[in-house]
């Protein structure tokens, strides 16, 4: 630890947000003054996480295996006595990817033809080629990726970051979740929960395509007796009434905090329409994100909103690709050629656009972009289908942006892309690295709950040094 004693306030100050940000943060987060001693300066100020719901197939997207192509159609035999454990099915024959493989960029990363847009940016990305999950099942595996634990009730990474750092501006929340238009991911709103952390750290859910994107942002349409004037005068009356009440109880800062919370709400209400309104974006930008095509418009719109939020001070944005229901996500049990291409087409262009756009605007210098999923898929078919069952044994995630060494690929799976074998990384390492890039030592960010000082990384996690840019 550095000889300097930093507290969280100084720490925020170093980020150049000024006192306004702190005031806001202290309101958005009651337990604002968690003293986080920064052992190093943060590389990243904010994070966007793109989450592929369902388990994106590593061996059809990034994990090129000549052996899998050579042995296509053969029975899968990892060797004598090695048990092959599929989650819901009987293992079928090895299946090569139906997509074409090619090397891309200066770094020569293999990417399949399912992701033509992202393939052009591999030189900006750092790949974790040997991620491994403790669970092969959506619920617990998704929890591991969001909160670090297999069970419900634990705070998500975004909530921890909100707790540690708050947001970067006074009129936006610190943690925003943008679920797929088709529904919430596995585990519902628990995918953005603050768990046992104070409620104000939970992800603010924005339903980008809904008439009212944020719950309770406006009065319901039918309430005609509520007018701008009734609100303005009412809030003035309320403030005076609360101020008089608080004046008689000077010891109780919660009472003044509640007065401030109405002022913050008023600011949020003013800033939200502008935040969500894409009118100011050029047609070229909209086309870049695919807003003009039916397939890409939902994910594209949410990627674009994510960028707008970062610009306005949101600290952690999650953009979900796919919902938790069967089909229409990355859980391609039945037909990889059909289901995976559909999921990939919806995500590919907008994600690439986001990367390009962040870069063009200089935001990528201090923004971390993370692409992840809950687990991978099997190199063999699910029974006699063209689909693949869940595989926690190996999967791929990638990082780009602030503090990340571009163009590298860490770790290896075995010859079939069945199990990670070299430089294996877990969700704990993944989270430790995100926190590290934000300037937070993952062992030090704790919160007492039910007998234990809990961490995002449980009792595990190592920062993935190979992923970090030096200097």
């Amino acid at each position: 630890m550095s000889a300097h004693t930093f507290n969280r306030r100084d720490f925020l100050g170093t980020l150049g947000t000024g006192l306004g940000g702190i005031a806001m943060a202290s309101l958005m987060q009651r337990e604002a003054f968690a003293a986080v001693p920064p052992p190093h300066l943060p590389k990243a100020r904010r994070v966007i996480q793109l989450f592929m719901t369902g388990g994106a197939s590593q061996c059809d997207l990034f994990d090129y295996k000549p052996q899998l192509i050579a042995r296509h159609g053969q029975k899968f035999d990892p060797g004598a006595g090695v048990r092959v454990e599929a989650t819901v099915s009987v293992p079928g024959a090895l299946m090569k990817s139906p997509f074409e493989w090619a090397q891309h960029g200066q770094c020569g990363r293999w990417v399949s033809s399912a992701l033509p847009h992202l393939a052009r940016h591999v030189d900006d990305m750092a790949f974790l080629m040997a991620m491994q999950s403790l669970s092969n099942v959506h619920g617990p595996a998704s929890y591991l990726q969001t909160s670090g634990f297999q069970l419900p009730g634990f705070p998500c990474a975004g909530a921890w970051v909100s707790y540690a750092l708050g947001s970067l501006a006074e009129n936006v929340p610190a943690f925003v979740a943008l679920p797929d238009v088709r529904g919430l991911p596995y585990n519902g709103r628990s995918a953005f929960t603050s768990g046992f952390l104070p409620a104000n750290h939970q992800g603010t859910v924005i339903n980008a395509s809904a008439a009212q994107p944020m719950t309770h942002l406006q009065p319901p349409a039918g309430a005609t007796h509520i007018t701008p004037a009734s609100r303005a005068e009412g809030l003035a009356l309320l403030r005076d009434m609360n101020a008089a009440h608080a004046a008689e109880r000077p010891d109780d800062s919660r009472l003044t905090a509640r007065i401030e919370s109405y002022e913050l709400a008023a600011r949020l209400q003013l800033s939200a329409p502008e935040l969500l309104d894409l009118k100011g974006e050029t047609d070229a930008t909209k086309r870049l994100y695919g807003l003009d095509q039916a397939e890409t418009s939902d994910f594209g719109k949410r990627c674009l909103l994510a960028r707008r939020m970062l610009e306005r001070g949101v600290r952690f944005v999650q953009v979900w690709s796919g919902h938790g229901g069967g089909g229409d996500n990355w859980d391609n049990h039945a037909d990889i050629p059909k289901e995976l291409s559909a999921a990939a087409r919806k995500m590919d262009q907008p994600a690439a656009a986001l990367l390009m756009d962040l870069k063009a605007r200089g935001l990528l210098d201090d923004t971390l972009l993370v692409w992840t999923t809950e687990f991978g898929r099997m190199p063999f078919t699910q029974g006699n289908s063209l689909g693949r069952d869940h595989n926690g044994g190996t999967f791929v995630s990638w990082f780009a942006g602030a503090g990340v060494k571009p163009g590298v690929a860490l770790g290896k799976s075995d010859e079939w892309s069945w199990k990670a074998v070299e430089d294996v990384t877990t969700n704990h390492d993944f989270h430790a690295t995100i926190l590290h890039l934000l300037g937070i030592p993952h062992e030090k960010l704790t919160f007492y709950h039910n007998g234990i000082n809990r961490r995002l990384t449980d009792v595990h996690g190592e920062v993935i040094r190979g992923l970090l840019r030096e200097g």
Partner: protein
Amino acid sequence: MGTLKKPFNTRAALAVTGILAGALCTRAAIPAKPPDTAPAVARGGMSHWSLSPLVKPAVPVVGPASNPIDAFIRARLVEKQLAPSPEADPRTLLRRLSYDLTGLPPTPEEMDAFARASLEPDRAREAYAAQVDRLLASPRQGEHWARHWLDVANYADTHGNDHDYARPNAWPYRDYVIRSFNDDKPYARFVQEQIAGDALFPDDPQATVALGFLAAGPWDHTLMVTVREDTVDHRSAQNLDRDGMVSATMGTFQSLTVHCARCHNHKFDPITQREYYGLQAVFAGVDRANRPFDTDAGTHAKRRRLLAEQRALEQGDGPTLARLESPEARQKVAAWESAWSRREELWSPFDIISIVSTGGTSLTRQPDGSWFANGKRPDRDTYVITAHRRAGRLGAVRLEVLPDERLPQHGPGRWDNGNFHLSEFRAFAARPGAGENATPLVFARAAADYDEGPAISAAQAIDGKNDTQWGVHPRYGEPHEAVFEVKDPVVFPEDTTFTVILEFQDGVPGHGIGRFRLSAGDTTPDLAVVKPLSPDLSTLLRVPGAQRTSAQCRELALAVLKAENQHALADLPAPQSVYAVTRDFPPDGDNFKPSPQPRPIHLLVRGELAKPGELIGPGTLGCLPGMPRELEIADPSDESARRAALALWLTDGRNVLTWRSIVNRVWHHHFGRGLCDTPNDFGKMGGTPSHPELLDWLAVWFRDEAHGSLKALHRLIVTSETWKQTTLARQGAATDSDNRLLWRQNRPRLSGEQVRDTILALSGQLDPTMGGPPVVQFISHGDATFMSGGNPAFLDYEHFDPDAPAARRRAIYRFLFRTVPDPFMDSLDCPDAGVPTPVRGVSTTAVQAFAMLNDAFLIRQCGHLAARLAAPDVAPETQADLAFRHILLRDARPDERVRFAAYIKVHGLANACQLLLNGNEFLYLD
């Protein structure tokens, strides 16, 4: 800018120091060698405050305190040179008392009467005592305090996790808790019932309902049901399922964090890993599933007797064998056989006039009076049969489904495997001259010789639902029959036209019946006789009575007695179900099934399934003074005996934790903070009690003098001077700003439930109905068939009709959807039931301000409230007065009256009411 202090959540502050202290559970600190090498006591267990022997301390003598609570509190105040604060004024006091005990405010009339009585010194005390009595006797009391308990029990109406299916039978446990609190059930009994009510109180069906406690937390449906039984994921889920039961039990009743000893000995408390797995073994025989129970004690007793008889018949023990050869059995067999021989006489064929298939199947008459289906095999089909029969009473209709060589697998169904799915069986009768006006025949019961399963039986063909059905898989190529008993039979004249409808509309394609025959019976048949025989028994019956061997006689007698027993069981009113723990439930698929014997529990090295250590039998903790670590279990193969032993151990008078834990929990809710401020953690990482002597005095008093009466404990606390103090800070702010010494009362914010219930009470819309299935206060969109196990999708709380009957019930009766909570309640810190919540957070956020300003329910109720208070033409000043009087339970001050009247004049009373509800004076309790 506010540095927000949190008088009610000092743990958060500790968390900050936790950051500096570094992580406690670090990888380096995990012992590499096998656990359980250090005995608990050697690690200093007994010296910790919560594990020290429980001795009733002498009450300090301090001034005129008549309530021992005040004596203990004041003794400490004197030490610190602090004085107690004066009693709050009557209006403040009654509002506080009413919310504290019932979660609802007093009415303005109750408030006025109490304020008047309090003016007279000789009546004041009596008036207050009367209010305490009134509120403790109110059924609202149980509803309010049950919510506190359910926070700890982690109750919700869905399983949680990825698909978050509904748990439609969770609510009887919620009602059990409410009833227990209203009935002031002694605490020891309350604890015992929730761990082993079935074993300890077998005559009381409600004691079984109490087992809902052990099943109340989240449960992973995917891992337990969908994922293959032989996978690591599935076995890990079973392990965590038991862990949930152990943590719930020990966290709730002992305030211990034993779950910290799953991977290694507890790092801070004297709990070994071995002891932890001993506790897992206590619950090794049960799973979470629906458990039937009878609401009526008589039915419950009868069912128990019949089930015992059933077991005896199944096992064929000595007395049963003797019974089979008794004259009684012989008589029964004879009577049954004679009824059986006359069986065919009961039935007469229908005279079929026409028969039509809506799906285009061709139906042709066969020589034996049956009908054969061929030609097109539609996905969905309905056979409509029009028929006559001779005049007479119609007691039952029989549907025979018959094999035929022309059908797949010889039928009787048309599907490739020989099966059919009869989704509904319906019949109508049109008397001569009735024209088109046919009356439906109501069927009381249905029985078949063979049902595919309990959920695919003849009864499903008369349940009015098209997605359930009767099928006969895998018994193909043989005849089957179903008998439908008519409810309240009447005589029909000869020319009555009967229409019988066979529906194959469950959506499973091509599942029509291939060959069938319909007949009718005059009498209401005895279903035990009517229900067709198994093939083995049919063969046996063809042997003439005199030629049967004694083994054959016994077999027949056994079949008759079993049928009689089954019939008697079927005759009982259908039991209700509670989601609880059980060792007896129908398997759900191949992976989730009951274990006939308790599952073997191994100590898991580092908590890893791949590293099973020694086998561990049921046991408990060794760190309690004077308490054995061993559980006395006569028959460890009886899983319920294991739980019963733990229940008795927990409620032993010598168990110091049980009594300390509950009085602290109750104190927490009366003061906003426990004497120990970590109600689920009395270990070294938990809080230290501010008044350890008072805690011990209360624990002993509660155990020995109050005999576990929670109402007596409430009364003792709320009649203390300490509790009645004002919240206004004065002299103590400098020395004890956190008010640990209770020189004043704390100022709680209303909970989400209190806010919602109050709004309904004020608007006059509150529906006081108690109990029953949870009320759904959201709209489900997309493919969220959430009640029958669909996929999660958006649940829309915002657009749910605020005037729907479901919106008007108390918040305790809401349907609690674990992964998609109600945003309004969520903003007011209602827990999402992911983990137990012994202490709720109290947050102040912009999201909360938005909810209080813009929530549709709140806004609509403000409209009702305004309409209830005054007509729009009433003077604005009067309207302002009424709003203050009802919402804040006081008169408006002159300046307030002027400003609100001006506001009301322009913007109306509904807006003004909402402002008052947004005010801190409403949301905080002085």
